[in-house]
């Protein structure tokens, strides 16, 4: 069963005179206990997609102009303020990149966690409840840490505290938006291991937003690749990494150096990432695509299911999977 389901979501953004169509016809469903990764670069709309789930986007300037987001058969886009409050934190909760920005510098760790608990349960929270949450995210010496202020903690421990707060109401879906990006490599792997463990222990689903395919490979069951406001490829992690069919996915996989495996020139993707909402006509990736055909600049490709569960937005996917493409710049 799906923990949450996005159907044909459209989101517009008003920027002075223009209306930018930042997300178009996006569909994504996340099953209970599933870890799905949304991969994309700046301006691809991945964070906006995640924030849309419980409408954490200021409208205006944004506007939901189509689609549904279904939780328990109810559409989030039609919910009242009170209904939204009831699902925020309980059904979907968030962890962001900078733990420092999510923590209040003048409150101790214990005080902040109690505040979150109070928000979700009516009664007063106790030290035991705080300790239980800190142990859940594996913070050593919870009794001591409870009385610390955030600045005394390292980035990794701060992120664990933020995670504890996000888990306070036992959400069905945890959204981790670049939650390990700012952490050191050795700490990043610790947090990824913790996320997997929490999924198993609490039975929650995770939507992990990242630009790092190594993170995806480490943790995700399924992956959706976003480019310029659209999903361009989606499928089981292993399939997608071993047999990417969209030229952009292939480019992403080939352009990162890998330990012990790369020499000489890297296969860069030419050009630049388009700005949020200012997307090219036709296939949005065509100006940077090594396989672009004459009609790619005019024809908008659909997301098609090529094999069960593997979706691709490129009518020429057969070319990319057999041919090596034109020489890149």
């Amino acid at each position, binding site marked *: 069963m799906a923990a949450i389901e996005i159907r044909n979501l459209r989101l517009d953004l008003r920027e002075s005179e223009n209306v930018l169509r930042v997300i178009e016809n996006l569909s994504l469903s996340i099953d209970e206990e599933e870890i799905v990764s949304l991969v994309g*670069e*700046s301006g691809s709309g991945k964070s906006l997609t995640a924030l849309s789930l419980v409408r954490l986007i200021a409208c205006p300037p944004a506007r939901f102009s189509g689609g549904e987001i279904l939780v328990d058969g109810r559409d989030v886009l039609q919910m009242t303020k009170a209904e939204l409050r009831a699902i925020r934190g309980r059904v979907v909760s968030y962890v962001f990149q900078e733990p420092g920005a999510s923590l209040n510098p003048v409150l101790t760790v214990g005080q902040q966690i109690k505040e979150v608990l109070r928000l979700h349960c009516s009664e007063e929270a106790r030290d035991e409840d705080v300790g239980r949450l800190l142990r859940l995210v594996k913070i050593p010496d919870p009794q001591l840490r409870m009385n610390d202020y955030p600045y005394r903690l*390292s*980035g*990794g*421990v701060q992120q664990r505290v933020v995670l504890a707060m996000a888990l306070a109401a036992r959400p069905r879906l945890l959204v981790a938006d670049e939650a390990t990006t700012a952490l*050191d*490599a*050795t*700490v*990043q*792997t*610790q947090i990824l*291991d913790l996320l997997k463990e929490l999924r198993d222990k609490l039975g929650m689903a995770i939507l992990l937003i990242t*630009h*790092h*395919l*190594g*993170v*995806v*490979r*480490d943790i995700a069951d399924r992956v959706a690749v976003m480019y310029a406001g659209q999903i361009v490829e989606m499928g089981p*992690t*292993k399939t997608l*990494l*071993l047999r990417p069919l969209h030229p952009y996915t292939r*480019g*992403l*996989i080939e*352009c*990162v*150096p*890998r*330990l*012990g495996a*790369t*020499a000489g*020139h*890297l*296969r*860069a*993707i*030419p050009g*630049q*990432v388009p700005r949020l909402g200012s997307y090219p006509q036709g296939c949005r990736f065509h100006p*940077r695509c090594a396989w672009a055909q004459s009609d790619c600049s005019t024809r908008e490709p659909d997301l098609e299911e090529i094999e069960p569960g593997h979706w691709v937005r490129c009518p020429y996917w057969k070319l990319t999977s057999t041919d090596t493409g034109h020489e890149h710049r």
Partner: protein
Amino acid sequence: MALLEVRRLAVQFPIGERLFRTAKRVLRAVDDVSFEIHSGESMGLVGESGCGKTTLGRAVVRLSEAVSGSISFEGEDITALKCSTLRSRRQRFQMVFQDSHSSLNPRMTVEEIIGEAIEIHRLARTREVRRHRVIALLEQVGLDATHLRHYPHQFSGGQRQRIGIARALAVQPKLIVCDEPVSALDVSVQAQIINLLRDLQQSRGIAYLFISHDLAVVEHFSHRMMVMYLGKVVEIGDTKRICQTPRHPYTQALISAVLDIDPHSKRRRIVLSGEPPSPISPPSGCPFHPRCPIAEDRCRSTAPELRQVSEDHQVACHLA
């Protein structure tokens, strides 16, 4: 003779207020670091946040002052050079920063930004000559004359990084310190910049001190590399050798933490307990011992010195 020779370099920052009668406390950001870079070579520098990479890079180009040790460039000791002489030497070593947003003056056009470097070093006699030089530089980094009158905010992150590189190239340096030059860029654009830096190395024989927290990028880019932990170099030498047979337990952990994208790859993951300690109160003995999976008694009391373990490969570990 090495192009750059750094000997026992130390950089410290004062911390807090100087308290009544107590000695001033210091943070040892770079502690007794020695290495050399040969002309046309790239030296990678990796390590976790706060270990002193940026501070070391800035000290090398004399943007931070050393408290002890020496830096020689082409055989000349530049550690104590004063302003005017230093300025003329700066022609030969430049720095490219991570954050192209704050390192390019937002009120200057591209022509002015790159032209300024040419001006300071009096490398062009007339405006016309200067403009031609700027255009030639832009073309070398994949931009062109149409960009002359644009301001930094009109460019993408990758393009701004190209402008920063063009500015560094303007004075025809022999060494460029690149501090996380691709970390702020979109992944699809990172490879363009890495390729550009490599091409420039090949065509102009530029040497790099290449700072990154991404070990895979460093392995790809550098001939030699060093690993820093808490202000100290714990392993240094030939890049391939270090990545294939890392000898320091910290380097081993760093390598095991690289997340590969190949679903078939299986790497032994070394889980370090805890997190980097604060450089304000570094541990006794080996700085890594509180997190080290194999630490013994002597690691807690005696700091290991760098020693040779094979050709061009040195490690600071009692047990390596």
